[in-house]
Protein backbone atom coordinates (compact mmCIF):
# COMPACT_ATOMS: atom_id res chain seq x y z
CA UNK A 1 0.00 0.00 0.00
CA UNK A 2 1.35 3.35 -0.92
CA UNK A 3 1.51 5.74 2.00
CA UNK A 4 2.78 9.25 2.01
CA UNK A 5 5.98 9.83 3.94
CA UNK A 6 4.09 11.71 6.56
CA UNK A 7 1.55 8.94 6.98
CA UNK A 8 4.33 6.40 7.25
CA UNK A 9 6.08 8.47 9.89
CA UNK A 10 2.88 8.87 11.87
CA UNK A 11 2.24 5.16 11.66
CA UNK A 12 5.71 4.36 12.88
CA UNK A 13 5.23 6.78 15.73
CA UNK A 14 1.97 5.13 16.71
CA UNK A 15 3.62 1.73 16.67
CA UNK A 16 6.52 3.02 18.73
CA UNK A 17 4.24 4.55 21.32
CA UNK A 18 2.19 1.35 21.46
CA UNK A 19 5.24 -0.83 21.96
CA UNK A 20 6.57 1.53 24.60
CA UNK A 21 3.23 1.31 26.40
CA UNK A 22 3.51 -2.46 26.32
CA UNK A 23 7.07 -2.74 27.51
CA UNK A 24 7.62 0.07 30.03
CA UNK A 25 5.76 -1.66 32.90
CA UNK A 26 7.74 -4.83 32.23
CA UNK A 27 11.00 -2.92 32.27
CA UNK A 28 9.99 -1.26 35.54
CA UNK A 29 9.46 -4.68 37.09
CA UNK A 30 12.80 -5.75 35.75
CA UNK A 31 14.44 -2.80 37.44
CA UNK A 32 12.67 -3.36 40.74
CA UNK A 33 13.90 -6.96 40.69
CA UNK A 34 17.37 -5.53 41.18
CA UNK A 35 16.29 -2.93 43.70
CA UNK A 36 18.48 -2.82 46.76
CA UNK A 37 15.75 -1.30 48.93
CA UNK A 38 12.46 -2.89 49.90
CA UNK A 39 10.58 0.37 49.68
CA UNK A 40 9.18 0.97 46.22
CA UNK A 41 10.23 4.57 45.72
CA UNK A 42 11.37 5.58 42.28
CA UNK A 43 14.13 5.71 41.31
CA UNK A 44 15.57 2.78 43.25
CA UNK A 45 18.58 3.73 45.36
CA UNK A 46 20.79 0.87 44.32
CA UNK A 47 21.06 -2.43 42.52
CA UNK A 48 21.62 -5.93 43.79
CA UNK A 49 21.18 -9.49 42.61
CA UNK A 50 20.37 -10.89 46.02
CA UNK A 51 16.68 -11.27 45.19
CA UNK A 52 17.46 -13.69 42.42
CA UNK A 53 19.52 -15.78 44.80
CA UNK A 54 16.73 -15.70 47.33
CA UNK A 55 14.23 -16.65 44.64
CA UNK A 56 16.21 -19.72 43.73
CA UNK A 57 16.50 -20.64 47.38
CA UNK A 58 12.86 -20.11 48.19
CA UNK A 59 11.17 -23.42 48.94
CA UNK A 60 7.68 -22.06 48.73
CA UNK A 61 8.35 -20.52 45.32
CA UNK A 62 9.79 -23.75 44.02
CA UNK A 63 6.85 -25.80 45.27
CA UNK A 64 4.42 -23.34 43.81
CA UNK A 65 6.24 -23.46 40.48
CA UNK A 66 6.14 -27.26 40.41
CA UNK A 67 2.46 -27.27 41.28
CA UNK A 68 1.75 -24.84 38.47
CA UNK A 69 3.72 -26.92 36.00
CA UNK A 70 1.91 -30.06 37.09
CA UNK A 71 -1.53 -28.49 36.88
CA UNK A 72 -0.73 -26.94 33.52
CA UNK A 73 0.60 -30.17 32.05
CA UNK A 74 -2.38 -32.27 33.09
CA UNK A 75 -4.93 -29.64 32.12
CA UNK A 76 -3.26 -29.22 28.72
CA UNK A 77 -3.18 -32.97 28.18
CA UNK A 78 -6.89 -33.21 28.89
CA UNK A 79 -7.49 -30.23 26.65
CA UNK A 80 -5.53 -31.73 23.77
CA UNK A 81 -7.59 -34.87 23.93
CA UNK A 82 -11.02 -33.41 24.45
CA UNK A 83 -10.45 -30.33 22.32
CA UNK A 84 -9.41 -32.42 19.33
CA UNK A 85 -12.36 -34.75 19.71
CA UNK A 86 -14.81 -31.90 19.85
CA UNK A 87 -13.28 -30.03 16.94
CA UNK A 88 -13.27 -33.16 14.78
CA UNK A 89 -16.92 -33.64 15.51
CA UNK A 90 -17.84 -30.06 14.71
CA UNK A 91 -15.65 -29.56 11.67
CA UNK A 92 -16.28 -32.85 9.94
CA UNK A 93 -19.85 -33.76 10.72
CA UNK A 94 -23.20 -32.18 10.70
CA UNK A 95 -25.56 -32.93 13.53
CA UNK A 96 -28.38 -31.52 15.51
CA UNK A 97 -27.18 -28.74 17.75
CA UNK A 98 -23.87 -28.16 16.00
CA UNK A 99 -24.38 -24.40 15.83
CA UNK A 100 -25.30 -24.37 19.50
CA UNK A 101 -22.13 -26.21 20.38
CA UNK A 102 -20.07 -23.65 18.52
CA UNK A 103 -21.70 -20.95 20.56
CA UNK A 104 -21.60 -22.76 23.90
CA UNK A 105 -18.02 -23.81 23.61
CA UNK A 106 -16.95 -20.19 23.74
CA UNK A 107 -18.57 -19.64 27.11
CA UNK A 108 -15.76 -20.78 29.42
CA UNK A 109 -13.57 -18.13 27.86
CA UNK A 110 -16.19 -15.51 27.20
CA UNK A 111 -17.68 -15.57 30.67
CA UNK A 112 -15.62 -13.87 33.36
CA UNK A 113 -13.32 -16.14 35.32
CA UNK A 114 -15.05 -15.33 38.55
CA UNK A 115 -18.30 -16.80 37.24
CA UNK A 116 -16.57 -20.02 36.21
CA UNK A 117 -14.72 -20.15 39.50
CA UNK A 118 -17.78 -19.58 41.67
CA UNK A 119 -19.92 -21.99 39.66
CA UNK A 120 -17.38 -24.82 39.69
CA UNK A 121 -16.48 -24.27 43.34
CA UNK A 122 -20.14 -24.38 44.28
CA UNK A 123 -20.68 -27.58 42.31
CA UNK A 124 -17.66 -29.30 43.80
CA UNK A 125 -18.34 -28.46 47.40
CA UNK A 126 -22.13 -28.31 47.57
CA UNK A 127 -23.39 -30.65 44.88
CA UNK A 128 -20.69 -33.28 44.54
CA UNK A 129 -19.40 -32.97 48.07
CA UNK A 130 -15.75 -33.34 47.11
CA UNK A 131 -13.16 -31.21 48.80
CA UNK A 132 -11.06 -28.74 46.89
CA UNK A 133 -7.60 -29.84 45.88
CA UNK A 134 -5.20 -29.77 42.95
CA UNK A 135 -7.61 -32.09 41.16
CA UNK A 136 -10.39 -29.51 41.25
CA UNK A 137 -7.94 -26.86 40.07
CA UNK A 138 -6.99 -29.03 37.11
CA UNK A 139 -10.65 -29.55 36.27
CA UNK A 140 -11.19 -25.79 36.36
CA UNK A 141 -8.18 -25.08 34.16
CA UNK A 142 -8.97 -27.87 31.73
CA UNK A 143 -12.37 -26.31 31.15
CA UNK A 144 -10.97 -23.23 29.47
CA UNK A 145 -7.96 -25.06 28.04
CA UNK A 146 -10.31 -27.32 26.10
CA UNK A 147 -11.86 -24.24 24.54
CA UNK A 148 -8.52 -22.82 23.50
CA UNK A 149 -7.36 -26.03 21.85
CA UNK A 150 -10.77 -26.49 20.26
CA UNK A 151 -10.69 -23.03 18.72
CA UNK A 152 -7.27 -23.56 17.25
CA UNK A 153 -7.92 -26.98 15.81
CA UNK A 154 -11.38 -26.23 14.48
CA UNK A 155 -10.01 -23.18 12.70
CA UNK A 156 -7.41 -25.32 10.99
CA UNK A 157 -9.83 -28.11 10.17
CA UNK A 158 -12.27 -25.67 8.64
CA UNK A 159 -9.59 -24.40 6.33
CA UNK A 160 -8.53 -27.84 5.21
CA UNK A 161 -10.84 -29.70 2.97
CA UNK A 162 -12.62 -32.85 4.03
CA UNK A 163 -12.11 -34.23 0.58
CA UNK A 164 -8.65 -35.48 1.50
CA UNK A 165 -10.16 -37.71 4.10
CA UNK A 166 -12.75 -38.97 1.68
CA UNK A 167 -10.03 -39.75 -0.81
CA UNK A 168 -8.15 -41.62 1.85
CA UNK A 169 -11.20 -43.69 2.67
CA UNK A 170 -11.77 -44.34 -0.98
CA UNK A 171 -8.24 -45.63 -1.22
CA UNK A 172 -9.03 -48.24 1.41
CA UNK A 173 -7.81 -46.69 4.65
CA UNK A 174 -10.05 -47.29 7.62
CA UNK A 175 -11.02 -44.65 10.15
CA UNK A 176 -7.90 -44.77 12.33
CA UNK A 177 -5.55 -44.88 9.37
CA UNK A 178 -7.26 -41.91 7.81
CA UNK A 179 -6.93 -40.03 11.04
CA UNK A 180 -3.33 -41.00 11.54
CA UNK A 181 -2.05 -40.38 8.06
CA UNK A 182 -4.29 -37.64 6.75
CA UNK A 183 -6.18 -35.69 9.39
CA UNK A 184 -3.68 -35.59 12.20
CA UNK A 185 -0.69 -34.31 10.23
CA UNK A 186 -2.77 -31.44 8.93
CA UNK A 187 -3.85 -30.34 12.38
CA UNK A 188 -0.64 -31.16 14.23
CA UNK A 189 0.81 -27.67 14.36
CA UNK A 190 -2.50 -26.05 15.22
CA UNK A 191 -2.84 -28.55 18.02
CA UNK A 192 0.62 -27.78 19.29
CA UNK A 193 0.10 -24.04 19.13
CA UNK A 194 -3.23 -24.42 20.90
CA UNK A 195 -1.64 -26.58 23.56
CA UNK A 196 1.07 -23.99 24.16
CA UNK A 197 -1.45 -21.22 24.53
CA UNK A 198 -3.58 -23.39 26.82
CA UNK A 199 -0.56 -24.09 28.98
CA UNK A 200 0.27 -20.40 29.14
CA UNK A 201 -3.25 -19.53 30.24
CA UNK A 202 -3.27 -22.23 32.88
CA UNK A 203 0.16 -21.27 34.16
CA UNK A 204 -0.84 -17.66 34.70
CA UNK A 205 -4.40 -18.22 35.88
CA UNK A 206 -5.40 -16.85 39.26
CA UNK A 207 -9.10 -16.18 39.49
CA UNK A 208 -10.58 -19.62 38.80
CA UNK A 209 -7.69 -21.13 40.74
CA UNK A 210 -8.47 -19.07 43.83
CA UNK A 211 -11.93 -20.57 44.01
CA UNK A 212 -11.01 -24.16 43.23
CA UNK A 213 -7.80 -24.70 45.15
CA UNK A 214 -7.54 -26.62 48.39
CA UNK A 215 -6.03 -25.55 51.66
CA UNK A 216 -2.48 -26.79 51.43
CA UNK A 217 -1.68 -26.14 47.80
CA UNK A 218 -0.33 -23.18 45.94
CA UNK A 219 0.17 -22.48 42.29
CA UNK A 220 2.69 -19.86 41.28
CA UNK A 221 0.11 -17.07 40.78
CA UNK A 222 -1.36 -17.82 44.19
CA UNK A 223 2.10 -17.68 45.69
CA UNK A 224 2.68 -14.35 43.99
CA UNK A 225 -0.62 -12.94 45.24
CA UNK A 226 0.10 -14.05 48.77
CA UNK A 227 3.48 -12.33 48.74
CA UNK A 228 2.49 -9.28 46.78
CA UNK A 229 2.22 -6.96 49.74
CA UNK A 230 4.82 -8.38 52.04
CA UNK A 231 7.68 -5.89 52.01
CA UNK A 232 10.18 -8.67 52.64
CA UNK A 233 8.93 -10.87 49.87
CA UNK A 234 8.04 -8.41 47.16
CA UNK A 235 11.47 -8.10 45.55
CA UNK A 236 11.67 -11.88 45.41
CA UNK A 237 8.33 -11.88 43.62
CA UNK A 238 9.75 -9.44 41.10
CA UNK A 239 12.78 -11.64 40.61
CA UNK A 240 10.59 -14.70 40.07
CA UNK A 241 8.53 -12.77 37.54
CA UNK A 242 11.64 -11.77 35.61
CA UNK A 243 12.86 -15.35 35.59
CA UNK A 244 9.52 -16.55 34.24
CA UNK A 245 9.50 -13.90 31.50
CA UNK A 246 13.00 -14.79 30.40
CA UNK A 247 12.34 -18.52 30.35
CA UNK A 248 9.11 -18.01 28.46
CA UNK A 249 10.94 -16.64 25.45
CA UNK A 250 11.45 -20.27 24.48
CA UNK A 251 7.77 -21.30 24.23
CA UNK A 252 6.88 -18.02 22.55
CA UNK A 253 9.50 -18.64 19.93
CA UNK A 254 8.32 -22.21 19.47
CA UNK A 255 4.72 -21.07 19.15
CA UNK A 256 5.77 -18.57 16.54
CA UNK A 257 7.66 -21.17 14.53
CA UNK A 258 4.72 -23.55 14.72
CA UNK A 259 2.32 -20.91 13.55
CA UNK A 260 4.31 -20.00 10.51
CA UNK A 261 4.57 -23.58 9.33
CA UNK A 262 1.80 -24.51 7.00
CA UNK A 263 -0.24 -27.57 7.80
CA UNK A 264 0.77 -30.58 5.73
CA UNK A 265 -2.23 -30.85 3.51
CA UNK A 266 -3.35 -27.30 3.24
CA UNK A 267 -0.87 -25.59 0.96
CA UNK A 268 -2.06 -22.27 2.28
CA UNK A 269 -0.70 -18.92 1.24
CA UNK A 270 2.26 -17.34 2.94
CA UNK A 271 2.50 -13.91 4.38
CA UNK A 272 3.26 -14.58 7.97
CA UNK A 273 0.33 -16.87 8.44
CA UNK A 274 -2.47 -14.59 9.47
CA UNK A 275 -4.83 -17.43 9.96
CA UNK A 276 -2.28 -19.25 12.02
CA UNK A 277 -1.92 -16.22 14.20
CA UNK A 278 -5.65 -16.20 14.55
CA UNK A 279 -5.40 -19.77 15.72
CA UNK A 280 -2.84 -18.79 18.26
CA UNK A 281 -5.13 -16.16 19.65
CA UNK A 282 -8.02 -18.62 19.77
CA UNK A 283 -10.47 -16.23 18.27
CA UNK A 284 -13.90 -17.81 18.46
Amino acid at each position, binding site marked *: *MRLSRRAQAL*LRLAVGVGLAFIYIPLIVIGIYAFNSSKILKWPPPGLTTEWFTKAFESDSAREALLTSLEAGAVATAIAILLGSLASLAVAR*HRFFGRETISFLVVLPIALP*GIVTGVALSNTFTQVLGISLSLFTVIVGHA*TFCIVVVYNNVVARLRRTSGSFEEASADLGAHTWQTFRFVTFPSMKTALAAGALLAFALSFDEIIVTTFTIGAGEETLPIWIYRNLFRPNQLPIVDAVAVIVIVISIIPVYIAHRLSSEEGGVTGGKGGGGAAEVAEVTAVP
Partner: protein
Amino acid sequence: MATEAVAPKRSAGRKLAGLFQGRPRLQVGALLAAPGAWLVVLYLGSLAVLLITAFWTVDPLSGEVIKGFSLENFDALVNEPVYRTIVWRTVRTAALVTLTDAVIAFPIAFYMAKVASRRGKGILIVAVLMPLWSSYLVKILSWRTMLSEDGVINWALNPIGLHGPGYGLTAVWLVLSYLWLPYMILPIYAGLERIPNSLISASEDLGASPFTTFRRVIFPLAFPAVVAGSIFTFSLSLGDYITPRLVSNSQFIGNTIASSITNDLPFAAALALIPIVVMIVYLSVARKLGAFEHV
Protein backbone atom coordinates in the same frame (compact mmCIF):
# COMPACT_ATOMS: atom_id res chain seq x y z
CA MET B 1 3.77 -57.05 -13.69
CA ALA B 2 0.24 -56.92 -12.57
CA THR B 3 -0.64 -55.31 -9.30
CA GLU B 4 -3.42 -57.22 -7.79
CA ALA B 5 -5.73 -55.65 -5.31
CA VAL B 6 -5.12 -57.33 -2.03
CA ALA B 7 -7.69 -57.08 0.69
CA PRO B 8 -6.17 -55.46 3.79
CA LYS B 9 -5.67 -57.60 6.87
CA ARG B 10 -8.54 -57.68 9.32
CA SER B 11 -6.64 -56.28 12.31
CA ALA B 12 -8.35 -55.38 15.53
CA GLY B 13 -8.04 -51.72 14.73
CA ARG B 14 -9.65 -52.25 11.37
CA LYS B 15 -12.45 -54.24 12.91
CA LEU B 16 -13.17 -51.49 15.38
CA ALA B 17 -12.92 -48.89 12.66
CA GLY B 18 -15.39 -50.89 10.66
CA LEU B 19 -17.88 -50.34 13.42
CA PHE B 20 -17.70 -46.62 12.83
CA GLN B 21 -17.59 -46.79 9.08
CA GLY B 22 -20.69 -45.43 7.48
CA ARG B 23 -22.22 -44.66 10.85
CA PRO B 24 -21.77 -40.93 11.25
CA ARG B 25 -24.01 -40.78 14.28
CA LEU B 26 -21.83 -43.23 16.13
CA GLN B 27 -18.76 -41.30 15.10
CA VAL B 28 -20.22 -38.05 16.32
CA GLY B 29 -21.38 -39.68 19.50
CA ALA B 30 -18.01 -41.18 20.24
CA LEU B 31 -16.21 -37.95 19.41
CA LEU B 32 -18.48 -35.79 21.48
CA ALA B 33 -19.01 -38.05 24.47
CA ALA B 34 -16.08 -36.94 26.57
CA PRO B 35 -15.91 -33.24 25.71
CA GLY B 36 -19.68 -33.10 25.78
CA ALA B 37 -19.79 -34.57 29.24
CA TRP B 38 -17.20 -32.10 30.44
CA LEU B 39 -18.46 -28.93 28.89
CA VAL B 40 -22.16 -29.51 28.96
CA VAL B 41 -22.70 -31.54 32.09
CA LEU B 42 -19.97 -30.18 34.30
CA TYR B 43 -19.64 -26.63 33.09
CA LEU B 44 -23.14 -25.75 31.94
CA GLY B 45 -24.55 -27.84 34.74
CA SER B 46 -22.53 -25.77 37.19
CA LEU B 47 -23.91 -22.61 35.64
CA ALA B 48 -27.42 -24.02 35.94
CA VAL B 49 -26.82 -24.87 39.59
CA LEU B 50 -25.58 -21.33 40.11
CA LEU B 51 -28.76 -20.01 38.59
CA ILE B 52 -30.83 -22.05 41.00
CA THR B 53 -28.69 -20.99 43.95
CA ALA B 54 -29.53 -17.39 43.13
CA PHE B 55 -33.09 -18.11 44.20
CA TRP B 56 -32.07 -19.37 47.63
CA THR B 57 -31.25 -17.39 50.77
CA VAL B 58 -28.92 -17.62 53.69
CA ASP B 59 -29.37 -17.61 57.45
CA PRO B 60 -27.77 -14.43 58.83
CA LEU B 61 -26.19 -16.04 61.87
CA SER B 62 -25.04 -19.47 60.79
CA GLY B 63 -24.40 -18.66 57.17
CA GLU B 64 -26.26 -21.79 56.15
CA VAL B 65 -27.92 -21.85 52.76
CA ILE B 66 -31.68 -22.14 52.98
CA LYS B 67 -32.96 -23.99 49.96
CA GLY B 68 -36.35 -22.41 49.70
CA PHE B 69 -37.46 -20.40 46.68
CA SER B 70 -37.16 -16.68 47.28
CA LEU B 71 -36.80 -13.56 45.19
CA GLU B 72 -35.05 -11.74 48.00
CA ASN B 73 -31.71 -11.50 46.21
CA PHE B 74 -33.17 -10.10 43.03
CA ASP B 75 -35.24 -7.74 45.10
CA ALA B 76 -32.11 -6.37 46.72
CA LEU B 77 -30.35 -6.08 43.36
CA VAL B 78 -33.18 -4.10 41.85
CA ASN B 79 -34.10 -1.90 44.77
CA GLU B 80 -30.74 -1.02 46.28
CA PRO B 81 -29.28 1.66 43.99
CA VAL B 82 -25.65 0.82 44.70
CA TYR B 83 -25.82 -2.28 42.51
CA ARG B 84 -26.96 -0.30 39.52
CA THR B 85 -24.07 2.07 40.12
CA ILE B 86 -21.64 -0.81 40.29
CA VAL B 87 -22.95 -2.53 37.17
CA TRP B 88 -22.96 0.70 35.20
CA ARG B 89 -19.45 1.53 36.38
CA THR B 90 -18.19 -1.90 35.30
CA VAL B 91 -19.87 -1.90 31.90
CA ARG B 92 -18.76 1.65 31.22
CA THR B 93 -15.16 0.83 32.10
CA ALA B 94 -15.21 -2.34 30.00
CA ALA B 95 -16.51 -0.40 27.01
CA LEU B 96 -13.93 2.32 27.47
CA VAL B 97 -11.14 -0.22 27.75
CA THR B 98 -12.34 -1.96 24.59
CA LEU B 99 -12.41 1.30 22.68
CA THR B 100 -8.98 2.32 23.93
CA ASP B 101 -7.49 -1.02 23.02
CA ALA B 102 -9.02 -0.91 19.56
CA VAL B 103 -7.52 2.51 18.96
CA ILE B 104 -4.05 1.55 20.19
CA ALA B 105 -4.08 -1.87 18.57
CA PHE B 106 -5.17 -0.88 15.11
CA PRO B 107 -2.06 1.05 14.02
CA ILE B 108 0.21 -1.64 15.40
CA ALA B 109 -1.76 -4.40 13.71
CA PHE B 110 -1.93 -2.45 10.49
CA TYR B 111 1.78 -1.86 10.46
CA MET B 112 2.41 -5.53 11.14
CA ALA B 113 0.05 -6.68 8.43
CA LYS B 114 0.62 -4.25 5.61
CA VAL B 115 3.78 -2.28 6.05
CA ALA B 116 6.37 -4.35 7.88
CA SER B 117 8.88 -6.47 6.06
CA ARG B 118 8.67 -10.21 6.48
CA ARG B 119 11.34 -10.20 9.11
CA GLY B 120 9.86 -7.18 10.85
CA LYS B 121 6.54 -8.97 10.96
CA GLY B 122 8.07 -11.93 12.72
CA ILE B 123 9.83 -9.73 15.25
CA LEU B 124 6.68 -7.76 15.94
CA ILE B 125 4.57 -10.86 16.43
CA VAL B 126 6.99 -12.16 19.01
CA ALA B 127 7.21 -8.72 20.60
CA VAL B 128 3.44 -8.57 20.96
CA LEU B 129 3.09 -12.16 22.17
CA MET B 130 5.79 -11.92 24.84
CA PRO B 131 3.75 -9.95 27.41
CA LEU B 132 1.09 -12.65 27.31
CA TRP B 133 3.59 -14.85 29.05
CA SER B 134 4.43 -12.49 31.87
CA SER B 135 2.42 -12.85 35.02
CA TYR B 136 -0.89 -11.00 35.06
CA LEU B 137 -0.47 -10.22 38.75
CA VAL B 138 3.00 -8.85 38.32
CA LYS B 139 1.83 -6.56 35.55
CA ILE B 140 -0.85 -5.12 37.81
CA LEU B 141 1.70 -4.78 40.57
CA SER B 142 4.00 -2.94 38.22
CA TRP B 143 1.28 -0.41 37.50
CA ARG B 144 0.48 -0.14 41.16
CA THR B 145 4.02 0.86 41.95
CA MET B 146 4.23 3.16 38.93
CA LEU B 147 1.04 4.94 40.00
CA SER B 148 1.91 5.31 43.66
CA GLU B 149 2.80 8.62 45.28
CA ASP B 150 6.51 7.95 44.95
CA GLY B 151 6.32 5.97 41.74
CA VAL B 152 7.63 6.43 38.21
CA ILE B 153 4.68 8.37 36.85
CA ASN B 154 4.77 11.07 39.46
CA TRP B 155 8.54 11.16 39.26
CA ALA B 156 8.23 11.92 35.56
CA LEU B 157 5.30 14.33 35.76
CA ASN B 158 6.00 16.34 38.91
CA PRO B 159 8.94 18.29 37.45
CA ILE B 160 6.64 19.69 34.78
CA GLY B 161 3.98 20.51 37.29
CA LEU B 162 1.63 17.64 36.59
CA HIS B 163 0.48 14.88 38.85
CA GLY B 164 -0.27 11.31 37.98
CA PRO B 165 -3.81 9.95 38.28
CA GLY B 166 -2.96 7.94 41.37
CA TYR B 167 -5.31 5.16 42.25
CA GLY B 168 -8.93 5.16 41.20
CA LEU B 169 -11.07 4.60 38.14
CA THR B 170 -8.52 6.16 35.80
CA ALA B 171 -5.94 3.71 37.08
CA VAL B 172 -8.31 0.80 36.54
CA TRP B 173 -8.94 1.95 32.98
CA LEU B 174 -5.21 2.29 32.29
CA VAL B 175 -4.30 -1.07 33.74
CA LEU B 176 -7.11 -3.01 32.09
CA SER B 177 -6.33 -1.43 28.72
CA TYR B 178 -2.75 -2.44 29.24
CA LEU B 179 -3.50 -6.02 30.23
CA TRP B 180 -5.76 -6.92 27.34
CA LEU B 181 -4.00 -5.08 24.53
CA PRO B 182 -2.35 -8.19 23.01
CA TYR B 183 -5.76 -9.86 22.84
CA MET B 184 -6.90 -7.06 20.58
CA ILE B 185 -3.78 -6.70 18.45
CA LEU B 186 -3.60 -10.29 17.27
CA PRO B 187 -7.13 -10.76 15.94
CA ILE B 188 -7.01 -7.41 14.17
CA TYR B 189 -3.68 -8.35 12.66
CA ALA B 190 -5.13 -11.64 11.48
CA GLY B 191 -8.12 -9.87 10.02
CA LEU B 192 -6.02 -7.30 8.21
CA GLU B 193 -3.73 -9.95 6.81
CA ARG B 194 -6.70 -11.58 5.22
CA ILE B 195 -7.49 -8.49 3.19
CA PRO B 196 -5.90 -9.11 -0.19
CA ASN B 197 -3.46 -6.42 -1.14
CA SER B 198 -5.07 -6.40 -4.56
CA LEU B 199 -8.19 -4.82 -3.11
CA ILE B 200 -6.19 -2.01 -1.63
CA SER B 201 -4.29 -1.50 -4.86
CA ALA B 202 -7.56 -1.45 -6.76
CA SER B 203 -8.92 1.21 -4.46
CA GLU B 204 -5.86 3.35 -4.96
CA ASP B 205 -5.95 2.83 -8.70
CA LEU B 206 -9.51 4.10 -8.68
CA GLY B 207 -8.22 7.33 -7.18
CA ALA B 208 -9.04 7.00 -3.51
CA SER B 209 -6.81 8.74 -1.01
CA PRO B 210 -5.25 6.51 1.64
CA PHE B 211 -7.73 7.83 4.14
CA THR B 212 -10.69 7.01 1.92
CA THR B 213 -9.27 3.57 1.22
CA PHE B 214 -9.01 3.05 4.92
CA ARG B 215 -12.48 4.29 5.61
CA ARG B 216 -14.29 2.47 2.82
CA VAL B 217 -12.26 -0.64 2.17
CA ILE B 218 -9.93 -1.57 5.01
CA PHE B 219 -11.93 -0.72 8.08
CA PRO B 220 -15.20 -2.35 7.02
CA LEU B 221 -13.34 -5.53 6.12
CA ALA B 222 -11.39 -5.51 9.35
CA PHE B 223 -14.35 -4.64 11.53
CA PRO B 224 -15.42 -8.23 12.33
CA ALA B 225 -11.90 -8.87 13.57
CA VAL B 226 -12.13 -5.84 15.81
CA VAL B 227 -15.38 -7.18 17.19
CA ALA B 228 -13.79 -10.58 17.76
CA GLY B 229 -10.99 -8.98 19.72
CA SER B 230 -13.46 -6.88 21.66
CA ILE B 231 -15.12 -9.99 23.02
CA PHE B 232 -12.00 -10.68 25.00
CA THR B 233 -11.30 -7.17 26.17
CA PHE B 234 -14.90 -6.61 27.18
CA SER B 235 -15.40 -9.91 28.94
CA LEU B 236 -12.08 -9.86 30.72
CA SER B 237 -12.74 -6.33 31.94
CA LEU B 238 -16.27 -7.17 32.97
CA GLY B 239 -15.26 -9.83 35.44
CA ASP B 240 -11.94 -8.59 36.73
CA TYR B 241 -11.82 -7.86 40.42
CA ILE B 242 -8.13 -8.05 41.14
CA THR B 243 -7.27 -4.91 39.18
CA PRO B 244 -9.90 -2.72 40.88
CA ARG B 245 -8.84 -4.13 44.21
CA LEU B 246 -5.17 -3.40 43.70
CA VAL B 247 -5.27 0.00 42.02
CA SER B 248 -8.48 1.55 43.26
CA ASN B 249 -11.09 1.59 45.95
CA SER B 250 -13.99 1.20 43.64
CA GLN B 251 -16.30 -1.74 43.62
CA PHE B 252 -16.81 -3.51 40.34
CA ILE B 253 -19.13 -6.42 39.69
CA GLY B 254 -16.31 -8.88 40.29
CA ASN B 255 -15.46 -7.33 43.67
CA THR B 256 -19.02 -7.54 44.92
CA ILE B 257 -19.25 -11.16 43.83
CA ALA B 258 -15.94 -12.01 45.45
CA SER B 259 -16.84 -10.33 48.71
CA SER B 260 -20.39 -11.70 48.79
CA ILE B 261 -19.28 -15.23 48.26
CA THR B 262 -17.73 -15.36 51.71
CA ASN B 263 -20.94 -14.82 53.57
CA ASP B 264 -23.89 -15.02 51.17
CA LEU B 265 -23.43 -17.54 48.38
CA PRO B 266 -26.95 -17.18 46.96
CA PHE B 267 -26.52 -13.44 46.68
CA ALA B 268 -23.15 -13.91 44.99
CA ALA B 269 -24.85 -16.29 42.57
CA ALA B 270 -27.49 -13.69 41.80
CA LEU B 271 -24.77 -11.13 41.18
CA ALA B 272 -22.91 -13.57 38.94
CA LEU B 273 -25.94 -13.80 36.68
CA ILE B 274 -25.43 -10.21 35.65
CA PRO B 275 -22.16 -10.69 33.74
CA ILE B 276 -23.56 -13.88 32.24
CA VAL B 277 -26.54 -12.03 30.83
CA VAL B 278 -24.41 -9.13 29.63
CA MET B 279 -21.99 -11.44 27.83
CA ILE B 280 -24.71 -13.49 26.20
CA VAL B 281 -26.15 -10.30 24.77
CA TYR B 282 -22.69 -9.17 23.71
CA LEU B 283 -21.89 -12.50 22.07
CA SER B 284 -25.16 -12.49 20.15
CA VAL B 285 -24.43 -9.02 18.82
CA ALA B 286 -20.87 -10.03 17.97
CA ARG B 287 -22.10 -13.04 16.10
CA LYS B 288 -24.41 -10.86 14.02
CA LEU B 289 -21.49 -8.58 13.25
CA GLY B 290 -19.56 -11.52 11.87
CA ALA B 291 -16.96 -12.08 14.54
CA PHE B 292 -17.64 -15.77 14.63
CA GLU B 293 -17.16 -16.36 10.95
CA HIS B 294 -13.77 -15.03 11.37
CA VAL B 295 -11.88 -18.21 10.84
